[in-house]
């Protein structure tokens, strides 16, 4: 299918973009890489009145370290972060997750913040933001605000972003020395949407596990270090609490089993990565 007709504006600054959002009303949409929005336009699941293109905004294209975070601008492509020199040492969880994120041919154009804004419950970048406790900066014509991942992520394809607001940056906390990180997922094919995605962080006295693809948004749970049966029990309880559902790809039961089995594996891997 082809998209429904829309006006188009290519902007050169965030200020220009939020001014256009303000005058465009609730049917105005931001486009950056388009890897999430364009399929929705082609299927007519989204029918915006105007598309505001921020893909060429230089001031939104950056990766920088600031105050214990790595901040990524709204026009920064996934491939740019994947190739960033500091990724392995500063963001080891993302380093482990990137091979699972789409394909070479989609990371080249898809943006980090676009994936966060799209908020697909199975996608990896929102899951990593939730597990690491990152933040998102929103800007509108009237001001700026910062939301934590937990505040920003509200459900299936939905965020706390209001009409007139756009995501201008996301901040991923840099890894604490000594912590171990691991990521894995189960999908039908390499690069396909995850049936279940799992991200784990192990510190000296805590284990944190985030699950994508089961509940309607990334869900994170933290425990004191658990071993053996206690860990199995905790994972089983978590799996049931996620309230998974049956769909054409997998049953709820299969999803729970993946949480139990891969959950254990990813936690063990995170622990073994501790230094």
């Amino acid at each position: 299918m082809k998209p429904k007709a829309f006006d188009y504006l290519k902007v050169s600054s965030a200020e220009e973009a939020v001014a256009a959002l303000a005058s465009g009303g609730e049917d105005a949409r931001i486009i950056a890489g388009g890897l999430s929005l364009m399929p929705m336009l082609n299927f007519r699941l989204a029918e915006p009145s105007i598309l505001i293109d921020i893909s060429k905004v230089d001031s939104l294209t950056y990766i920088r370290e600031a105050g214990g975070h790595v901040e990524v601008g709204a026009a920064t492509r996934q491939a740019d972060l994947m190739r960033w020199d500091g990724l392995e040492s500063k963001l080891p969880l993302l380093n482990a997750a990137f091979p699972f994120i789409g394909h070479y041919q989609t990371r080249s154009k898809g943006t980090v913040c676009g994936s966060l804004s799209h908020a697909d419950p199975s996608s990896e970048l929102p899951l990593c933001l939730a597990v690491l406790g990152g933040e998102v900066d929103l800007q509108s014509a009237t001001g700026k605000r910062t939301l934590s991942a937990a505040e920003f992520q509200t459900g299936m394809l939905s965020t706390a972003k209001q009409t007139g607001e756009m995501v201008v940056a996301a901040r991923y906390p840099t890894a604490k020395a000594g912590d171990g990180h691991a990521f894995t997922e189960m999908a039908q094919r390499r690069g396909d949407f995850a049936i279940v995605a799992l991200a784990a962080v192990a510190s000296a006295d805590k284990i944190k596990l985030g699950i994508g693809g089961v509940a309607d948004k990334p869900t994170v749970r933290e425990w004191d270090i658990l071993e053996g049966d206690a860990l199995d029990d905790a994972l089983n309880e978590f799996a049931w609490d996620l309230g998974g559902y049956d769909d054409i790809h997998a049953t709820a039961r299969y999803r729970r089993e993946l949480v139990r089995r891969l959950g254990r594996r990813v936690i063990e891997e995170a622990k073994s990565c501790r230094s």
Partner: protein
Amino acid sequence: MPQLNKDARHTVTMTLNGDEVSGYAEPRMLLSDFLTHEIGITSCHVGCEHGVCGACTVLVDGTVMRGCLTLAVQAEGSTVETAENLASDEGELSELQLAFKKHHGLQCGYCTPGILMSLTAYLKENPKPTEEELRDMLSGHLCRCTGYVGMVRAVLDYCENRTD
């Protein structure tokens, strides 16, 4: 750039395979449709039209992009390369194309131009991929004829013996 009205057709100019070309596009027109219907390129194949199959993959300013997930108006002023750019002006196939031919890297050929364009960009970044890396990269394209076996052989042979 001024705001482009949804009901009007706008002039879009780009450098396509080394030549400046222009055509008309409504804002909603996909780059894949623009190249095919406005310009007359035949290699930008439309398969799924939502970014999954990879048949429409082209290079925009050297970056791999799905033609169906890019708007023609977004490519205004850009440099676009399609599979027509691979062979010489005299129609001599490139070494990569010859390797595909030698190793039966294609059958029906529908997915092939997109794959060749992905490889063109990818092999610049990673000139000697391992088979595993190559298969991972090819997972971004659907081929329902070959099972990828000939294709993988073709690329590995090309990377080993290329003189271009």
